[in-house]
């Protein structure tokens, strides 16, 4: 189905067999790109062509294709998710490009995100940070009535702004230091804003930050590239709240070991 609006695009795509191998940019030409296609659908079309020619299709991560699972992860023309406001790669539509454009597509680049293949990277570091305390210890079955915890609307809204993080890693990929402070700050901030999160706030903050640094994510030097490329528009104010929580915890938090034996 081709129409007069169709475009021809030149792509330069990063190909790399695996974590240990050398990678390089390879040129591809895609014809009959409809402006209504999504960016990933355009890659699908290219992959179908490659398969028909007997070549290895381009590996990339994707799943929901509606901007919420956080799986898709491409640097498009040097910008995470293409650099469009509040947009993930899967939500980029080809009407944003014009006939004859050359587009460079690369994987997330960060020390803490080793490449799996082509455009897919290993983001398990983000899970490891959450494992250190990105939760509220509320076991199933103990909860009190939901309305017994009153939370002012502005606080609930701000917590929701932070909780909107999809864990894609664009903040890390676009940070000159490869820092995951926006990702981590969003979680710490969400849980610090909500009363349910208060009891564990200090321990959480200290342990998550320590893990973040151990995993090879860099520090925040307030470039704010993360905020600019975050597809969910998460503000670096959450990093500031995390820093306050950290400072508070560093001065006040002491965990004493106690014997818990009894008769």
């Amino acid at each position, binding site marked *: 189905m081709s129409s007069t609006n169709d475009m021809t695009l030149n792509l330069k795509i990063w190909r790399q067999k695996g974590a240990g191998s050398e990678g390089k940019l390879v040129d591809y030409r895609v014809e009959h790109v409809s402006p209504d296609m999504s960016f990933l659908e355009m890659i699908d079309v290219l992959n179908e062509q490659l398969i028909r020619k007997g070549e290895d299709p381009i590996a990339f991560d994707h799943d929901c294709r509606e901007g919420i699972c956080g799986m898709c992860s491409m640097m498009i023309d040097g910008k995470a998710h293409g650099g469009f406001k509040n947009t993930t790669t899967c939500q980029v539509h080809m009407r944003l490009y014009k006939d004859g454009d050359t587009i460079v597509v690369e994987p997330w680049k960060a020390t803490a995100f080793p490449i799996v293949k082509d455009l897919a990277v290993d983001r398990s570091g983000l899970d490891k940070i959450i494992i250190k305390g*990105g939760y509220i210890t509320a076991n199933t079955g103990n909860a009190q009535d939901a309305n017994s915890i009153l939370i002012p609307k502005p606080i609930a809204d701000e917590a929701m702004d932070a909780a909107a993080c999809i864990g894609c890693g664009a903040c890390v990929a676009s940070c000159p230091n490869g820092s995951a402070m926006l990702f981590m700050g969003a979680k710490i901030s969400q849980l610090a804003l909500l009363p349910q999160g208060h009891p564990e706030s200090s321990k959480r903050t200290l342990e998550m930050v320590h893990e973040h640094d151990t995993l090879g994510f860099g520090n925040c030097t307030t470039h704010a590239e993360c905020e600019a490329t975050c597809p969910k528009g998460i503000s670096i104010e959450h990093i500031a709240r995390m820093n306050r929580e950290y400072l508070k915890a560093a001065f006040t938090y002491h965990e004493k070991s106690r014997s818990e034996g009894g008769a």
Partner: protein
Amino acid sequence: MSFNLDAKAPQGELKDKWEKHKFDMKLVNPANKRKFTVIVVGTGLAGGSAAATLAELGYNVLSFCIQDSARRAHSIAAQGGINGAKNYPNDGDSVKRLFYDTIKGGDYRSRESNVYRLAEVSKNIIDQMVSQGVPFAREYGGYLDNRSFGGSQVSRTFYARGQTGQQLLLGCYSGMMKMVSKGKIKMFNRREMMDLVTINGKARGIIVRNLITGELERYAADAVLLCTGGYGNVYFLSTNAMTSNASAAWRCYKRGAGFANPCFTQIHPTCIPVHGDYQSKLTLMSESLRNDGRVWVPKKQADARAPGDIPDDERDYYLERIYPSFGNLAPRDVSSRQAKYRYDEGKGVGPTKQAVYLDFRDAIKRDGVETIAGKYGNLFEMYERITGDNPYKTPMMIYPAVHYTMGGLWVDYNLQSTIPGLHVLGEANFSDHGANRLGASALMQGLADGYFVAPYTISNYLASTTLEKVTTEDPAFKDAEQAVTLQTARLLGIKGKRTVDDFHKILGHIMWEKVGMARNEAGLKEAIDKIRVLREEFWKDVNVPGDTGNFNLELNKAARVADFLELGELMALDALERKESCGGHFREEYQTPDGEAKRDDEHYAHAAVWEYTGSNSSPIRHKEELKFEYVQLATRSYK
């Protein structure tokens, strides 16, 4: 022949069944729990909540997910909300009403005892999620806010903007990560279940493919929980995520698990319409939009005017006209069917004519842009990003799309399949939604199963079953792995001319046209014939590039499509055998004079449960008769 379809619903009054059952079930003492290992496949709301809860109880949990993190399962994409019979708005809700709405919404094709329990635990779910820090929408006083969804006349839906699924899933995920930190959950990312291993008739393990290395891995356990979602992607285009697939459930079916009501699929009325052959998926626009949006088409056929130029008296607000008491909040099956009728009448709009309007003009006039933006801002943005149109200024164009599957593996009251030790949770089972699911009830069911039902029933299973010690060296593991290896080699060896997607698209087209919103005998027979031919062609002419032993996305896709090509046929066969219309299953031969579904309670008040009998013989159709003791079977009316 061999199926025992005893639902094992406890005796006694409906409202006392679950309490009584919880007391009657056996417990495993705390010191013994650590001796048991449980496999949980899938990390959506059902799998995530089950894994976390079982680990909290002390079991060793092995958790598997297909994505690179447990936080990305497709529950994350649910937009609108989750039902809970809290009656916070004081508008007449109760456990009984949620139970009744769900039974009626499912067109009287679900099991009373299960549905009542679902409604009962719905209240605990809301409490549990708030305690975990899910930022539900609040009113200024700090109390939780509610909205309405289709098929009900009360406001019982809790929500977190248009991202309720995401927030609930991240709640489950955080609970899981807490138990990973304690060493009670072992997490296996980027793994796909390839087969179920049964030993002495019981589910004792799984074979998975490591999607990075391509290698097959074996895991043994005392029980297996399948939480792998629905099979909507058999239609190629659906609102499901790209990796959502039926393979895990299908392999269990082939190992002896009954597959119930495969033809019960939900076509959601409000999705962004199809726009081209290259399209890979469809995007849902939340049902919550129908709280304020009005659905209409021009009264005149092929009206080419812009929507804003069509005056009110030339518009047909058909849901309000036909269903005055539910209006735009008529249930999904009904609303989808009515949209299809408008298209059939030549009143569809947009470039393909396969669309109707969802208009916010009046709501914006009444409440102001800011209020509407506050409620639906992110959905409007999403719509504009995809279509290039601004819904604040021009009505949305929407059309039905495949969204959810009510059918799934048969389970009893304990959520156990026909294979002992294989429990099935969430969308993967058939249990609670009958022939049509109400909006905001999928999240509720996934969490009910995982948090509040399975943890009890699994303990009972482990405490009351003799479980021999097994290892992954058992011949059953070897045989299952061998079968997967052979299938993989076969797929890679064909090197034909057509891609996996070529076949999947053709299958999807057959399913949508013949096993979609309207079905009839001739069409279903035609679909079965065509699918058989297509399946043969697939195994002769598919081109799967590369090899095993690495990250091969096409190979993974090929194995899934091979299963879809079998499941599609069973769906058509099930639809053919169910000679009535109910919920999402609409047989054109069985309808009322005004085009509504006509049930046949005398002959079809049962769940059809299919038994696999081998690749060269037809499956056997068994029945679980549904008994209605508390709800009177009635014609489902939303007028």
